[in-house]
């Protein structure tokens, strides 16, 4: 029961982890045109879940969860995610969000978090978000599926929140999308992750939008 409660706690958007400031390319994408329908936005969210979060972030999270006690292996997984993240705003964003996530857990003295924070400060790890989620949530007693669901839900609700704050969705519309994409999340989390699986993603248009967004003078979000 405690692991389940930890999962609820960690997937709560109120947990301070800096997530609210990252749009993961969405601010740039939604700024391209005015007439985004709710269906198109839902399709965009599904694409991000299926073709980036599930195949890259989730793969890394699961591997970090499995090797939470092995600092050298965690560092290697972290470097692998860095190497696979070609788009700088998303790569740097993942590291900044990871540092913010770890800042909270280190202050809370969650098991293993202070040592990981010291390793990050010493630059022994890069601190990508899914690596730290996997490692810390394992120490909190969450199993692999719970950790994946918490991260996936946080990613989905974060996208909905971004679109709402950008005025592209009403708050209730946003949660209609979240509700309807929960089965997608369930399906993606059910897909097995091999220990030697490589992170991959294919959302080229979104990555181009993220690159353009990084050059914009006016922007609300980090990426």
């Amino acid at each position, binding site marked *: 029961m405690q692991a389940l409660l930890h999962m609820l706690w960690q997937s709560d958007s109120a947990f301070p982890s800096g*997530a609210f400031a990252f749009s993961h390319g969405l601010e740039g994408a939604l700024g391209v045109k005015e007439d985004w329908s709710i269906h198109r936005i839902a399709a965009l969210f599904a694409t991000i879940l299926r073709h980036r979060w599930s195949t890259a972030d989730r793969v890394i999270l699961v591997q970090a969860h499995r090797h939470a006690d092995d600092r050298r292996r965690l560092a290697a997984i972290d470097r692998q995610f860095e190497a696979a993240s070609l788009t700088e705003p998303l790569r740097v964003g993942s590291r900044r969000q990871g540092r913010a996530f770890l800042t909270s857990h280190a202050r809370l003295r969650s098991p293993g978090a202070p040592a990981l924070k010291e390793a990050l400060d010493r630059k022994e790890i890069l601190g990508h978000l899914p690596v730290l989620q996997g490692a810390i949530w394992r120490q909190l007693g969450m199993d692999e599926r719970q950790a994946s669901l918490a991260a996936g839900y946080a990613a989905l609700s974060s996208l909905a929140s971004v679109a709402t704050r950008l005025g592209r969705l009403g708050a209730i519309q946003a949660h209609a999308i979240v509700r309807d994409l929960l089965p997608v999340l369930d399906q993606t989390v059910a897909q097995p992750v091999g220990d030697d699986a490589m992170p991959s993603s294919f959302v080229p248009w979104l990555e181009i939008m993220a690159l353009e967004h990084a050059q914009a003078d006016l922007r609300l979000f980090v990426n």
Partner: protein
Amino acid sequence: MQSIELSNEAPTAAPAAARIGIGGPVGCGKTALIERLIPVLQRRGINFAVVTNDLVTKEDALRLQRSGLIDPTRVSAVEAGACPHTVIREDPTLNIAAGDEMERLHPGLELVIFESGGDNLASTYSLDLVDWWMFVIDVAGGDDIPRKRGPGVLRSDLLVVNKVDLAPHVGVDLDQMLADARSVRNGRPVLATNARTGQAIEELADIILHAVLLER
């Protein structure tokens, strides 16, 4: 009501430098006050840095970095994700991390100033982020602001009323505005400033440095 013992894993803060917040509505003069404070703090030998939280740009950070007043590496910007309240209150982790990074880059740092992105009168700072914070309003915003009793006006450690030189030009009775401010704050300090001329900036530095035990 029975109190609840927190576990040994209670929240802890480890920063060495004192951390203060400067918040207030957009256009009240927060950046101008910081520009005036910088030479005063430098003259007093304070080792400090500034973290800004601009709403949609990095304009405030760039303004300070290009001012020639301060080493540009001592100024950084944190994006607020359309949530200027959240970044200093509900989720200050990005600011905490920025402050930690400043301390790592500048050993011996004594003070980090977090300038908020500018918002309404409900804005307050998390005590996870800062040890002390001030809220800035200005006379051009209207003399009824103190009477509206927003949390920023009521709960800040210091309320600054800026741009006092504009009072006669915007039909504000400054004495009455200051009296209202002192009345609603139950004895908490209120300071009238003019960042354009430097009025009361030395006094502002005195209050800040006394509050964070860096008097010199």
